[in-house]
């Protein structure tokens, strides 16, 4: 047996370096590991943190059940410390219905992508909303099938280039994107409907409030709740990682406008949200022209 003399400084590998400890300290309580298989710049983990932290903060974590659809986010099913039922592509809202009817005190939510919810299982989310099912459906909308490598979905916006719309989505040839939040908000059974985004810190914070309102709606048994979150998919959009948020803001974000589409029975359409946003933009510009914004 030979003795081994280490060369260079000896690193203590039994404790994490300082930087890693900071990251670990920020790990959501309901995450089993920080390892993940998502692409750099993917928006889905940001949305994940948003709803996991909300469940923890509301104190309902120990009675929450997730129902996952099929997409890139399906890999969260193994890393979320939440009891989970895996559904088939598109079928999560029905599965969530069965779960909730048997466990009425649980906080039951689906995790679906646009391919899952708006393509494969559109009728599921609409019927579940119309039934006023006391569940929350979460849609991670990036306007593309990320997992298959970047193909057009029912929410891809006009002009969006995908692997099966190479010259961009053409309305005449491919039809128009579905604004799913507007469909859901019109249904009597839907109590809370919102569309958030994770393309910047402000949007992340706003979206987290939407999760909170949605889960509160469910806990108070006020009806079906729905949160759509626009998430970056630089891989499926074929843009550089760092360009993801900007690209999203300029493309999907221009069509799937962020805001609350239904609160306390009052519906606001995506068009109304757009007009409101433009109004606010004009006001800001006018104020700036006057010499500054007063708080």
């Amino acid at each position, binding site marked *: 047996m030979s003795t081994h003399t280490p060369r260079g400084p000896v690193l203590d590998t039994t404790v994490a370096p300082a930087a890693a400890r900071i990251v670990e300290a920020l790990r959501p309580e309901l995450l089993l590991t920080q390892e993940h298989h998502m692409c750099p710049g993917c928006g889905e983990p940001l949305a994940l943190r948003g709803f996991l932290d909300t469940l923890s903060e509301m104190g309902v974590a120990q009675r929450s059940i997730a*129902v996952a659809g099929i997409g890139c986010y399906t890999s969260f099913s193994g890393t979320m410390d939440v009891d989970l039922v895996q559904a088939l592509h598109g079928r999560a809202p*029905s599965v*969530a219905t069965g779960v909730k009817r048997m466990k009425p005190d649980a906080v039951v939510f689906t995790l679906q992508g646009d391919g899952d919810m708006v393509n494969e299982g559109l009728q599921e989310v609409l019927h579940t909303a119309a039934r006023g099912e006391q569940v929350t459906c979460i849609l991670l909308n990036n306007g593309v099938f990320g997992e298959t490598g970047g193909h057009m979905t029912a929410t891809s916006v006009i002009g969006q280039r995908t692997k099966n719309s190479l010259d961009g989505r053409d309305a005449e040839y491919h039809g128009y994107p579905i604004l799913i939040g507007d469909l859901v908000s019109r249904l009597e059974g839907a109590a809370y409907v919102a569309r958030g985004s994770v393309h910047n810190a402000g949007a992340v914070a706003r979206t987290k409030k939407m999760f909170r309102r949605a889960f509160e709606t469910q806990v108070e048994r006020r009806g079906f709740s729905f949160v759509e979150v626009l998430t970056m998919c630089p891989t499926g959009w074929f843009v550089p990682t760092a360009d993801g948020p900007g690209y999203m803001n300029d493309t999907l974000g221009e069509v799937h406008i962020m805001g609350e589409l239904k609160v306390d029975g009052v519906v606001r359409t995506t068009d109304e949200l757009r007009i409101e946003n433009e109004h606010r933009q004009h006001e800001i510009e006018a104020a700036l022209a006057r010499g500054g914004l007063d708080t």
Partner: protein
Amino acid sequence: MTATLPGRAERTLMEGSEALVRASIAAGCKFFAGYPMTPFTEVLEHFARLLPEAGGTCINAESELEAVGMAWGALATGERAATGSTGQGLSLMQESFSELTLAELPMVVFNMARGQQDYFQATRGGGHGDYRHIVLAPQDVREGVELVQLAFFLADKWRNPVLVYGDYLLAHTQEALTIETLQFPELPPKSWAVDGTKSGSGLSGSVTPLGVSKHGQPSFGQEGKAQYIATKTPLMEREVRVETGFLDDAETVIVTFGSPAKFVKYAIKQLRADGHRIGYVRPITLWPFPYDTVRDAAAGARRVGSFELSAGQMVDDVRIGVSGQAPVTFIGGVSTDHSGFGMGRMLDVDVIRDRILALHTDRELPVIPGYEEFTYALAPHQQEAAR
């Protein structure tokens, strides 16, 4: 409509659908979701009426796809749950049926079939991948009450879907009966089920058809999962159930299942009384199929006939069982009522007796009264090919 028969207070007259539903409730079924379709519709109606009274939930699903999804969710929480339809509706559910098997969810599925043309669907499945479902085929309502309860037990025992194969007759025939709760051996608690209480504990669970598990827990991988599921198949094959009659000296053996089996058995009894050596094999489980019983029955016989109301589906399994020991003849046929929902002219003891006797005496199968006038024109090139 139910009515208590005078003097027989313990027995109630009820149609098959209601009996199957009451048997489900006796077995502890807590959830049902379905979509109406003849002749399954009454099963849904009775669940909708009776399940809430019994503390359960019945949802009028907006589609078959959603019905099976809802039952999937209910099962994942550890409750007993079922769905159903006709074969047509079950066609829509096939993706779920195959994946439910991988998720090891103990679903009970009712097929109130339009005839017996769903044998392949039931025993081979229309879904993808390697999977098997136990299929129970009652011959009448009384046996249905027993087999439905067995279905819930076997589903939990094997964590595998179990299908109850009925038809128009089973669903609509009224019988006076008592729904007795059957006792089965105790099964372990469903520690695999999820109810939300383990969330946030570091030990949360998942119910999934995929080969993944929670981080830090042993994981199958897709291949390992499929291999593991396959190991259950030979074990479930031991659940085979079969009824036989008059086989000892039988020269002709008829294989038959479901409601038509009762007609076949009656016809054979008549033929026996006339001195004809004919016996029968009635698979009660269509999967696992009683191959060994059919093999033994064929060993001493001169010929084997398969009677089923289809173009000939179970006959494939009969041939596998017989294994060339005797010629196998298909003596059934497609036979429904005009709507396609119910049974046709072939379900008639006289007609069946004539067919069995023709086979037994090596004569050509007789034309069925009422079917002789049908002419089906093949296209000229097909006629050419037929020559």
